[in-house]
């Protein structure tokens, strides 16, 4: 184990994979000499050279299209989109070409590409703060990964760089300054493997990305009141590790989903639906951003987004509603 900053874990994963696989190339804004917006590609240009670490113009559409075409023709491109909001500009090649390529070519062509983007809010306002996870999950053929720790950033990015089809790997702005343990050997985090961050018996809280950390904080608040929350970090947003989730809710009987994106048609809505289908009588609640854009104003940003206090409040409400229902049933 070594302690690495989140950004260092990323750089190490990329560096090791580039060393192993000469077909990996990087493309993105300011990733070469500059070393990336979050210093997460620092050293890669110097080590692997200009042909494999390529700055692009501010043109997300062609960046994603380049990655898709290069992937179809034998490379393994890793395309950087600084803010996932701007992936909107490059969705056409990702969704209309890469995600459908294996299907439409009858497996003669595939698109083993990775789009690495950063989601979530940190004081940069409405067009630099969104989460598109649920859009991407909605599209057949796309894998969506989102770490919340240095170790998972390392393990998931390595997995992404060996995946057979398009992967969107999503960081969160608030993770970059954080440090964490990273295994010294090559430890990959497989697709569809959620992590139980904290065990508990009263309810299961499922989150991903930065909200996993917020949820752990919330669990600590709840513990002081005697509520033991089991916290699960999805890590792989799609495909979902349903078995781990199901086993947990079978133990706790209650599910709260937490995400930074919108609730409507969100990640949590999907998770709640499927788990309710698997476990009759499961009591669920969801929490996401308030239904508004996220402002750069610190006050409005925190107004819009879930925090530990709000997660804890949702958990309390869920358990209380359940108790009331139970009372109603017994009387």
């Amino acid at each position, binding site marked *: 184990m070594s302690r690495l900053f989140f950004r260092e874990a990323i750089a190490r994963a990329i560096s090791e994979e580039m060393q192993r696989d000469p077909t990996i190339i990087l493309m993105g804004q300011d990733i070469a000499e500059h070393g990336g917006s979050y210093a997460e590609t620092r050293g890669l240009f110097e080590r692997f050279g200009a042909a494999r670490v390529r700055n692009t113009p501010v043109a997300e559409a062609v960046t994603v*299209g380049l990655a898709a075409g290069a992937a179809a*023709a034998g*490379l393994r491109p890793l395309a950087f989109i600084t803010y996932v909001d701007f992936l909107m500009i490059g969705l*056409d090649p990702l969704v209309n070409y890469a995600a459908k390529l294996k299907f439409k*070519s009858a497996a003669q*062509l595939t698109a083993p590409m990775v789009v690495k983007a950063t989601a979530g809010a940190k004081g940069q306002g409405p067009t630099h703060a969104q989460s598109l996870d649920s859009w991407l999950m909605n599209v057949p053929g796309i894998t969506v990964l989102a770490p919340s720790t240095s170790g998972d950033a390392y393990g998931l990015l390595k997995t992404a760089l060996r995946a057979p089809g398009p992967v969107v790997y999503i960081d969160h702005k608030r993770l970059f300054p954080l440090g964490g343990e990273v295994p010294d050997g090559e430890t990959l985090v497989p697709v569809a493997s959620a992590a139980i961050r904290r065990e508990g018996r009263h309810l299961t809280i499922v989150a991903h990305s930065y909200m996993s950390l917020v949820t752990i904080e919330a669990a600590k608040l709840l513990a002081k009141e005697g509520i033991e929350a089991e916290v699960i970090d999805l890590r792989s947003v799609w495909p979902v590790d349903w078995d781990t989730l199901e086993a947990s809710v079978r133990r706790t009987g209650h599910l709260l989903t937490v995400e930074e994106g919108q609730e409507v048609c969100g990640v949590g809505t999907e998770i709640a639906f499927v788990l309710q289908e698997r476990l009759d009588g499961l009591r669920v609640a969801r929490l996401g951003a308030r239904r508004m854009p996220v402002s750069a104003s610190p006050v409005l940003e925190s107004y819009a987004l879930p925090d530990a206090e709000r997660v804890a409040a949702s958990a309390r409400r869920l358990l209380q509603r359940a108790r009331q229902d139970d009372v109603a049933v017994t009387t």
Partner: protein
Amino acid sequence: MEQACSHAEGLRRLESMLLLRAFEAALLRQPKPGFQLLSRGEEAVAVGICTVLERSDPLLCSGRSIAMALARGVPSGGLLAELIGKDGGPNKGRAGRAHVSMPSIGLYGAHGVVAGNLSVAAGVALAQQQLHTGAVTCCVFGDGACGAGALHETLNIAALWQLPLLLVCDNNGYAVSTAVRQGIAVEQLTDLAAPFGVPAVAIDGTDVDDVVTAMHEAVTAIRAGSGPRFIEMRCTRMGPHSTATREERPSAELERFRDTDPIMRYEQRLRALGWLDDAKLAELQAAVATAITAAEQYAADAPWPDGDEALRDV
């Protein structure tokens, strides 16, 4: 401009164009031909391009792809099956005209999103550059695609990175009902390449020999490492936009298309050269007819695709 080609090669070009036209006619005779964009009037573009490209040179085309796929060498039976949604073609019936691909012969695929193939083609060219294959990637798109920002971004990156990319604009005069001048505010489409320093020429796309000559020049230069090129091939779409679109151009305009029919023109040229006479033409047509009949039979016998199998390829 006229490429000196051999007698045999001249006849091959003609036969190839005849096959493309007959194939599309056969497609329309199918009980359910489906939603198709045909290339009548644009055969010289397809045959000329594929005459010059090596099998290892990746070709990407637009939704108007049937002639291009045939000229590239997709077997006609398989292609017919593919177009009507049957298994038996290269993509097991899943692709249809707008998505047909056969990478084993360098056909990286049609793409149904107008201008959507441009950045993807740049990526394919990037892979050739990076893997040192020496291949030239050729991307064919319509005049309509020139209105899209994708062209700007692709020209820019291809010029910045000196990609081995040949951009071919198949200018058939219209994007559905919109004439080029109504959709793109430039004197000539080749002007769009100028700011990026990408050499560009406009040629007569109804003359298969001219297409071959221009392709040859461009491909040779790109293969020698000179970076991207742009060719505008001017031709006429002799039919309506698609099998589902009404034809609204005045019949006088349609009449005039005869003069630019690439097949009629080439027949006349070969006759003038003394390489073609009625008997020879009948022979070529008979060969084409035999091939088409076989293709029809193949397509008729082909099975429908299996959904479960398709689902596994997502």
